């Protein structure tokens, strides 16, 4: 827990709301130069964790530190290097976009005019527009700009692409990638799984207030069994596939053997080649499959 490359450390975080459980014993770290995807069904506690990281909620138990500084300490120290986009974004309606962003930069005791112009141009955001007249997508762009305009080294984003058009989403993904390469630590909470799959280095899956898994997307894929349909010209002894590594079930449909196995499927495929397989249809598990499998098994248990 003392690695200097750790931008965010959440250690045994429990947050209760009165008798209601928010999250329980959540432990995770985010390194500089890493994008951590944050996944979970509605009400799983994602926003609770993010708001606790940003010091808006007080932990019931556990420790949270950002940039090596406990979030309970003076926020002027650690928040200067953070950017945050809340999940339920509200903006003051009677200001122009530029005036609002300038208001925030004054409170940050910085001048970010150049970066504001650059981000607005990339996201196609009109800085002269009144916030009350903006569409949901354009408001979201204001949220993204305010989170990134001071070039923070730690960024916490809750549903950042909600309402963004595909072009803005694409631009946003590029922005995140650039910031990661510059060494920024990013926590990205979203329901858009392919977005996480595309940009995240690691993924946290949260359900019912607990961490189900923290790992890279590839390793998470390895955790769930997927279906491989092996077609043969002659019938084969399907029972032999049961003993292959990672196989969870085997069934037969005519001349086809259907194997469910976790990745990698090396041993199954070697066996199939030996049996003279003529066609292999395999479905590579997506992050969505992983997410559904893990949360479903959590609910079942």
């Amino acid at each position, binding site marked *: 827990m003392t690695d200097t490359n750790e931008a965010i450390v959440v250690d045994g975080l429990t947050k209760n709301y009165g008798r209601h459980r928010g999250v329980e014993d959540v432990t995770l770290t985010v390194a500089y130069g890493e994008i951590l995807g944050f996944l979970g069904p509605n009400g799983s506690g994602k*926003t609770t964790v993010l*708001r606790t990281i*940003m*010091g*808006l*909620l*007080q932990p019931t138990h556990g420790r949270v530190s950002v940039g090596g500084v406990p979030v309970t300490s*003076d*926020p*002027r*120290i*650690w*928040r*200067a290097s*953070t950017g*945050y986009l*809340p999940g*339920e*974004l*509200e*903006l*003051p309606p*009677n200001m122009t976009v530029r005036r609002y962003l300038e*208001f*925030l930069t*004054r*409170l*940050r*005791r910085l001048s970010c005019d150049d970066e504001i112009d650059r981000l607005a141009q990339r996201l196609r955001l009109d800085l002269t527009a009144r916030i009350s007249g903006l569409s949901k997508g354009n408001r979201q762009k204001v*949220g993204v700009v*305010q989170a990134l305009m001071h070039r923070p080294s730690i960024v916490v984003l809750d549903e950042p692409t909600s309402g963004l058009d595909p072009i803005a989403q694409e631009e946003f993904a590029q922005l995140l990638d650039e910031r990661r390469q510059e060494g920024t630590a990013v926590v990205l909470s979203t329901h858009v799984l392919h977005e996480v799959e595309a940009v995240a280095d690691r993924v946290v899956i949260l359900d019912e207030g607990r961490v189900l898994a923290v790992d890279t997307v590839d390793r998470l894929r390895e955790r769930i069994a997927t279906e491989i349909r092996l077609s043969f010209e002659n019938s084969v002894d399907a029972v032999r596939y049961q003993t292959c590594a990672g196989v969870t079930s085997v069934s037969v449909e005519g001349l086809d053997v259907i194997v469910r196995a976790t990745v990698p499927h090396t041993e199954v495929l070697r066996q199939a080649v030996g049996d003279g397989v003529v066609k292999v249809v395999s479905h590579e598990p997506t992050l969505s499959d992983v997410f559904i499998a893990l949360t479903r098994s959590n609910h079942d248990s």
Partner: protein
Amino acid sequence: MILDAIVRRSLRDRWRSLVACQVGLLALVTVQMAVYPTVRDTSTDWEGAVESFPEALREILRLEDYTSPTGYLSTELLSFVVPFIFMTLGATWGARVTAEEEEGGTADITWTLPITRREYLASRWTTGIVVLVMTTLVFTSALWIGNLLLDMRISIDHFGNVGLMLFLTGLTSFALAGTVGTSTGRRSVGLGVAMVVLITGFVFYSLAPLVDFFASINPYNPLQWMLGARPLTSGVSIGYVALLMTLSAVGFASSDGAFRGRDIRV
């Protein structure tokens, strides 16, 4: 540290209602001042009418010296109406100190900036103080100009006393609503609790001349501290000033403690 960006934005967001309040106060002073020459010119009739009132009622309505300039202004403006305006103004601004951003949903961005909650709170309190000072200056200036125009010959230090007591009335109401609003994050709760307390205090204060029990607790009633002094005639009570300032300081300290130690609502 006071954050001037917060103060300026808070004032800019509410400038219309602030101007409307000042215009309303000016209109009230103008109307009351315009009536005074008639009262002065018919003072004998008024004195006879006032003497026919029960003593307690004369006390409640401050009618003892109704036809004199100070007596007239005390009765018509300072016995209830203007202090009530300052109470409402203070409580309205106090209730929204932190609850405005919280209920408006903008708190999650503002309060994750590199500023402390105490800085934010102090800046919003400063805004409230600026509003109250401005309103006090507008009101006392209007009184002073009326005094000159109608040749009332009230000395300027009396207007200073009036201003001080009204400012403290507003500030104490601000502190009360601010403490509740900041502790709960709800504007309606802050305003509601403050107005219930102030109106109850006013009822107790008003009935003190008639009911012994209310008279016995009156020295502990903040409404007595706010309204019991006669700033236009007998000056201010240093004791009441100290009590109101202490109450306001306690309010700020309580708000600060409550705000720093609690979760921010979504």
